[in-house]
């Protein structure tokens, strides 16, 4: 009896010990994972001649916050940030507007060919952006849009991802709500704006944030369609040019990189519990 009890308590102790070790290992792993970011941040505050040292240091002889100011002096980062915010905000508005309108049609309107059209919508998802860039550039030439804001915003604003996500959410809004409003004589636009959109705020927020981040980090298309980086360039283009011109000034490069990450990190923290739902929206998979 007593023996069994000590055995049980010993087993519990072993299990507890295992849990502590497992957790400690996980924390070490998380630190290793974060190490590049931590080291980059540390570098962004170092004097230039202390970037490459063995053994590596976290804090240099002084904390040079001026690096951030200096990075802005070396390249027109204010301009890049302005352009990025402009493109990302307008682009997000277009995506949310177009997807919510079509999602409402697919979720709550009856019209011939609805299912077929929806399958066709989803079918467009299989075409990779990388296949479209060549003809898209030609289309921009034809439209006279090369080196313009609309070229940064519109071509990839119409994707079936948003429509799909919002339709799934709209379907969870009770049909009786829509129907009783119609019986009361409310028009479809009224129902869309007064009932559907307010009830779908969480889904709209998730779509908006992920779309914003998609625009914010986009590299390939802006690289192609923008010639004058200093006038129309977004942050990724600015960083890319900075690498080419100041590729050895690691303290400044890291300062610029840290600033470019701020909006994304803020959104991750804001999104928190909604991250999972947003996963499907803008195709960030395994990038």
């Amino acid at each position, binding site marked *: 009896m007593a023996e069994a009890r000590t055995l049980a308590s010993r087993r519990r102790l072993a299990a507890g010990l295992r849990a502590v070790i497992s957790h400690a290992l*996980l924390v070490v*792993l998380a630190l290793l*994972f974060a190490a*590049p*970011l931590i080291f980059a941040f540390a570098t962004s505050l170092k004097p230039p001649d202390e970037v*490459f*040292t063995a*053994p*590596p240091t976290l804090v240099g002889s002084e904390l040079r916050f001026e690096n951030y100011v200096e990075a802005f002096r070396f390249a027109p980062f204010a301009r890049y940030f302005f352009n990025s915010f402009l493109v990302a905000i307008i682009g997000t508005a277009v995506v949310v507007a*177009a*997807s919510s*309108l*079509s999602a409402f*049609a697919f979720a*709550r*309107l*009856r019209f011939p060919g*609805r*299912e077929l059209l929806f399958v066709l919508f989803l079918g467009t998802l299989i*075409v*990779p*952006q990388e*296949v*479209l*860039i*060549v*003809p898209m550039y030609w*289309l921009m030439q034809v439209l006279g849009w090369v080196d313009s804001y609309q070229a940064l915003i*519109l071509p990839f604003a*119409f*994707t*079936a991802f948003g429509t799909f996500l919002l339709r799934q959410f709209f*379907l969870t809004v009770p*049909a*009786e709500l829509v*129907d009783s409003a*119609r019986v009361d004589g409310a028009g*479809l636009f009224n129902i869309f704006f007064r009932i559907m959109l307010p009830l779908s705020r969480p889904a709209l927020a998730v779509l908006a944030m992920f779309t914003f981040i998609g625009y*914010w*980090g986009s*590299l*390939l298309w802006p*690289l*192609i369609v923008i010639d004058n980086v200093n006038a129309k360039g977004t942050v990724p283009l600015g*960083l890319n040019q900075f690498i080419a011109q100041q590729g050895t000034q*690691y303290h400044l*490069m*890291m300062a610029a*990189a840290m600033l*470019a*990450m701020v909006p*994304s990190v803020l959104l*991750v*923290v804001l999104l928190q519990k909604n991250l*999972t739902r947003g996963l*499907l929206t803008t*195709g*960030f*998979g*395994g990038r």
Partner: protein
Amino acid sequence: MSISIDTTAPAPEVSPGAHRRTRLRDDRRHALIFLGPSLLGLALFTLFPTVMALVMSLFNWPVFGDRTFRGLDNYARLVGDPIFRQVVLNTCLFVVLYVPLNVVVSLGLAAWVSPKIKGRQGFRILFFIPVLTPVVANAMVWRLMYQPGGLLDSVSQTVVGSPAPSFLASSSTAMLAIVVMSVWQGFGYNFLVFSAAIDQVPLEQLEAAAIDGASGRQRFWHVTLPLITPSIFFAITLTLITSFQVFAQPFLLTKGGPGNATQTLVLFVYNEGWRFLHMGLAAAAGWVLFVIVMGITAIQFLGQKRWVHYG
């Protein structure tokens, strides 16, 4: 998380008679308005360019100047081009290294960071950060890692006493360096997908298995894993497709070098189209990528019946 694409919406409740008819007419009229922007956008910016990509691939199509119809000439040139063959092999090498690594790391960590772990949300946020930060910024951070004198080198000098190899400058390590950076950057996505799926596994089933004497490892292999195969299927398909499209990491870290050792399909499209201004050839290479992506999608959907348990 189970992903089922259900294309039929339940029909809205409709009261009988005249109401019904006027409402259907109303629906039909409004459908076009509601669908208008998306339909127009998708037609102009997705369907039309897809067809145009095929058309352009049949032409000698310089960015400026005269275009001439060449039939399948561009495709023949691609097949005969040793650089293109290497580019396809490089891309496959990236995929073969990246996809299994990504899935194993994200699945392993998702199982490890179980609901019992303290600070779980913190781990989730941390692992997800590089998924959403701009690739260019991530790549800059990793240049600082790989750079001679950078973090890896200085750690190596301190610990081993000798400098680390110049990872990005040697053709034997450059691709591996790109893969490692890509896994670091990308696994947070699948980690979250798997975490969400593991949360859905019914506790009673795990407890029942535990009472029957199954160890933690056995419970994972025989209870959890079969139940989350739909998520694994979803993750592998998506990761495969996106990894064939890899561009930013090699573009930013190595520019496809040294030599052509890390040049990938999309990098080839970019170089042909915007450095050498051969739009026709670039479009043909793009279509090769498209066919690969369609092929994977088809194979995965045919194969899923064999090993996916949909609950």
